[in-house]
């Protein structure tokens, strides 16, 4: 059996079923419209000029020859975008700085990485735009560059920003550096903790930058009206955030920009930011024509995403009985060319699954001549977990304890401390470990060159701002709308929660994603927040409309509204004293809407708190070819606490997809730079994401420990699954070969070299 769903709540009619998604048929017939699929009459095609250098001062840009080319309608450079003030805004974990953002959209003083956008052209055909890009003349002063994070931290490293003084030091440094920020979390007494340990292991690790690898490159279509009103058709994880960023970067009012949510061809965090939208809209403004801009795959690798590579040292001390007494971690993260790596998440998540009385996590956010890092599925957590979960495996072996039982002994539950202060509020981790301990394959013996590895992971999960509307149509069918982009079936889960709340069949509820003018604000589809927060507001809107339906029924019956209840999709008299009335369906109430107050609809908005974190525990069996170093995944079992599975098949899909991205991160994927600081593998041939023939079936085990703060118990399910795989695979390789891999990816040459070194 591939899937083991432990559903403890069998009373639901819709929640917990896996119907076909409402947006399914267009997606299997080729009719669904993604970012690149929109066109307008008179549309121009845009192309972007990108830096061939990793680091260069831009002395001048001459566009005269390009502008003179017939068919060229507009060229923009950074001079076409307004200045932005230098401020870090928003919560520290995800702080933004528009001074940096506008410089990433179009380079100003310097090009800071190969592929950095410098100018953009709109022309009547894509071929003419391409030709025009080649006619733009740029006078570069090529500068020394730095790629590696440890190199970038050296005192003599080339500086990306000559005036950047590191934040987080006391006193502040007097000299500039590439260190944007230092941060530290600490609890207990580290020295005393390590002194009380029976075994201490300290080890250093490196991970490579990896790309989100969505199959759809960034694409959009922009229109700018003579009255200043403009529109974007954009593929993103949040069209409200696209609207906010684009308006800010172009200096236009939010009310003048309407963003239509195109279907999104994968995001995984990488489409929570903008790249093409401000360029296309600025070109539309300058040319007076609609403009379409599509990134190539090469540009997508060179100028978007990826997540950080890192250099880390982790030290953990345990007692002989398996109690963890102290942990210390140093996490140095590549931010890319602008500050803002997910290192703060990494430091917070690193030790989060474990009760550790004495712990410290130090993080560095470091710029280097790489594309600016972007969120990637549980940003930061998989990276620090690779180091921590590897060290834990070594310790479990040293004290002769089963690695799952070792984790279970130290697992956090509600009330356990965290390194960043507040206590954990939810259970769920221990249950994922137990699910694997109970798995019939966990103790099955393996063959020669085979090994079994275990690892766990933590992710915060998100809440935040969401809006939903519910309307009862004239015939009693239901339409719900949210502003949350659907990246993997959320229209189906919203419809399931609405159907369950209203007591009507799933098929009578149609679920859509509305544009920015048709629904209130929704934050991005990210942080595993949508089924939780947007689901919560859908339920709230449904409960509001039930109140309205009771009122309408009371008017039809001419009774007090208190005498009307809502049950199984019908208005019914509360008891016999109210009178004898046939139950009223949605259809019957809708038919009388004109005489009971008009159209029946509501909109609700919330800023959802109370989200519960995601925990995942996984084991995998691998076989290592000692002649080639190739690692084959034989079995992969992933247990995750999902709170409550609204649409179990899409929940499983999240777990399977996250695990496979983790397997790619573990075994193959990496950004490879040449000596000039140019990316050597900017394509899917050389940047190899897993393909079907690399993999076995991934067994997803959904553990359901409901979150009491959500009407159906939902916990975010999208991200925790990508946290454990790198360490799980590394631990399995160690058990198979006796070789500890300290660097990702564990590609055949690297594994072979490690095995050979071990052979002496």
């Amino acid at each position: 059996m591939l899937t083991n769903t432990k559903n403890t709540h069998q009373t639901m009619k819709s929640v917990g079923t896996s119907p076909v998604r409402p947006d399914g048929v267009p997606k299997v017939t080729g009719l669904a419209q993604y970012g690149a699929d929109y066109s307008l009459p008179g549309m121009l095609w845009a192309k972007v000029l990108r830096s061939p250098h990793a680091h260069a001062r831009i002395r001048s840009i001459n566009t005269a020859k390009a502008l003179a080319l017939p068919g060229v309608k507009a060229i923009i450079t950074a001079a076409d975008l307004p200045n932005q003030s230098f401020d870090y805004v928003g919560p520290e974990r995800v702080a933004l700085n528009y001074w940096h953002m506008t410089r990433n959209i179009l380079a100003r003083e310097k090009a800071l990485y190969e592929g950095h956008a410098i100018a953009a052209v709109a022309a009547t055909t894509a071929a003419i735009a391409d030709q025009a890009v080649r006619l733009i003349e740029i006078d570069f002063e090529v500068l020394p560059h730095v790629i590696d994070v440890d190199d970038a931290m050296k005192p003599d490293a080339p500086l990306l920003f000559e005036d950047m003084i590191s934040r987080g030091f006391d006193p502040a440094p007097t000299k500039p550096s590439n260190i944007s920020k230092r941060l530290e979390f600490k609890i207990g007494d580290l020295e005393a903790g390590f002194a009380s340990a029976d075994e201490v292991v300290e080890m250093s690790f490196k991970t490579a930058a990896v790309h989100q690898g969505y199959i759809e490159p960034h694409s959009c279509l922009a229109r700018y009206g003579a009255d200043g009103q403009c529109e974007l058709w954009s593929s993103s994880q949040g069209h409200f955030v696209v609207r906010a960023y684009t308006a800010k970067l172009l200096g236009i009012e939010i009310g003048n920009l309407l963003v239509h949510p195109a279907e999104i061809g994968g995001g995984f965090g990488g489409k929570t930011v903008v790249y093409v939208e401000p360029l296309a809209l600025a070109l539309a403004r300058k040319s007076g024509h609609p403009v379409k801009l599509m990134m190539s795959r090469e540009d997508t690798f060179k100028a978007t995403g990826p997540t950080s590579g890192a250099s880390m040292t982790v030290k953990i001390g345990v007692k002989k009985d398996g109690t963890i007494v102290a942990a210390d971690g140093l996490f140095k993260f590549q931010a890319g060319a602008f500050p803002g790596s997910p290192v703060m998440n990494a430091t917070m998540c690193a030790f989060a699954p474990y009760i550790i009385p004495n712990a410290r996590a130090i993080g560095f956010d470091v710029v280097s001549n790489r594309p600016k890092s972007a969120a990637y599925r549980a940003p930061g957590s998989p990276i620090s977990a690779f180091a921590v979960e590897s060290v834990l495996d070594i310790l479990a072996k040293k004290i002769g304890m089963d690695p799952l039982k070792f984790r279970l002994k130290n697992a956090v539950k509600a009330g356990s401390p965290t390194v960043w202060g507040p206590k954990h509020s939810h259970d769920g981790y221990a249950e994922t470990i137990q699910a694997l301990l109970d798995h019939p394959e966990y103790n099955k013996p393996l063959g020669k060159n085979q090994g079994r590895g275990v690892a766990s992971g933590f992710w915060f999960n998100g809440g935040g701002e969401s809006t939903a509307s519910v309307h009862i149509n004239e015939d009693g069918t239901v339409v719900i709308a949210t502003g949350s982009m659907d990246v993997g079936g959320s229209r189906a889960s919203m419809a399931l929660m609405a159907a369950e709340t209203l007591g009507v069949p799933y098929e009578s509820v149609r679920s859509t994603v509305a544009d920015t003018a048709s629904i209130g604000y929704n934050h991005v589809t990210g942080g595993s927040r949508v089924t939780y927060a947007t689901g919560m507001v859908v339920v709230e809107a449904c409960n509001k409309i039930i109140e309205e339906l009771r009122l309408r029924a009371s008017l039809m019956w001419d009774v007090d509204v208190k005498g009307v209840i809502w049950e199984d999709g019908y208005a019914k008299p509360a008891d016999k004293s109210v009178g004898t009335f046939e139950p009223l369906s949605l259809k019957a109430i809708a038919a009388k809407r004109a005489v009971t107050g008009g159209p029946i609809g509501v909109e609700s908005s919330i800023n959802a708190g109370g989200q519960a974190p995601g925990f995942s525990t996984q084991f995998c069996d691998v076989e290592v070819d000692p002649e080639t170093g190739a690692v084959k995944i034989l079995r992969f079992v992933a247990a995750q606490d999902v709170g409550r599975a609204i649409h179990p098949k899409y929940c499983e899909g999240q777990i399977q997809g996250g695990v496979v991205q983790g397997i790619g991160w573990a075994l193959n994927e990496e950004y490879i730079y040449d000596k000039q600081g140019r990316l050597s593998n900017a394509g899917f041939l050389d940047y190899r994401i897993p393909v079907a023939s690399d993999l076995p079936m991934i067994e997803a085990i959904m553990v359901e420990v409901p979150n009491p703060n959500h009407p159906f118990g939902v916990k975010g399910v999208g991200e925790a699954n990508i946290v454990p795989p790198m360490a799980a695979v590394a631990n399995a390789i160690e058990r198979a070969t006796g070789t500890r891999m300290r660097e990702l990816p564990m590609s055949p040459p690297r594994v072979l070299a490690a095995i050979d070194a071990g052979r002496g």
Partner: protein
Amino acid sequence: MAKQHVSTVINGDPIEFLCDANKSLLDVLRNDLGMTGTKEGCGTGDCGSCSVTLDGRLVCSCLVLGVEAEGKSVQTIEGMANGEHLHVLQRKFLEHAALQCGICTPGFLVAARSLLERNPDPTEEEVRFWLAGNLCRCTGYNKIIEAVLDAAREMRGA
């Protein structure tokens, strides 16, 4: 250089178009003929999102020139369903939740149909190797493989 005149058959219908000699079939389909169901993920033949068949042969349309369609028969995702009746593969992809974002789905469906035309009873391993040229970043492939195997079973009447 003057555009080339091309006469071809797409999804059973005769089609004529003019195109530059260096234009890919993918570009012609999407931008000249308005058939945007065929997707571009890489433009270099590495991801399979633009899979179509050319006289029954599975190809990446980004690696085929528009002029190569002359006198040939092209099948795209738009020709897979018969009116309101979905192809078994399309139905099974929906039932198995074999798509999350859906951008790779047209390519997978065209490639899977091509497999089942040649091998109506493939093993899981044969499905995995046939579809190894189609990248999916969302699903981990599990449900795609299950959907194809289930569709094969139903098409065989097993």
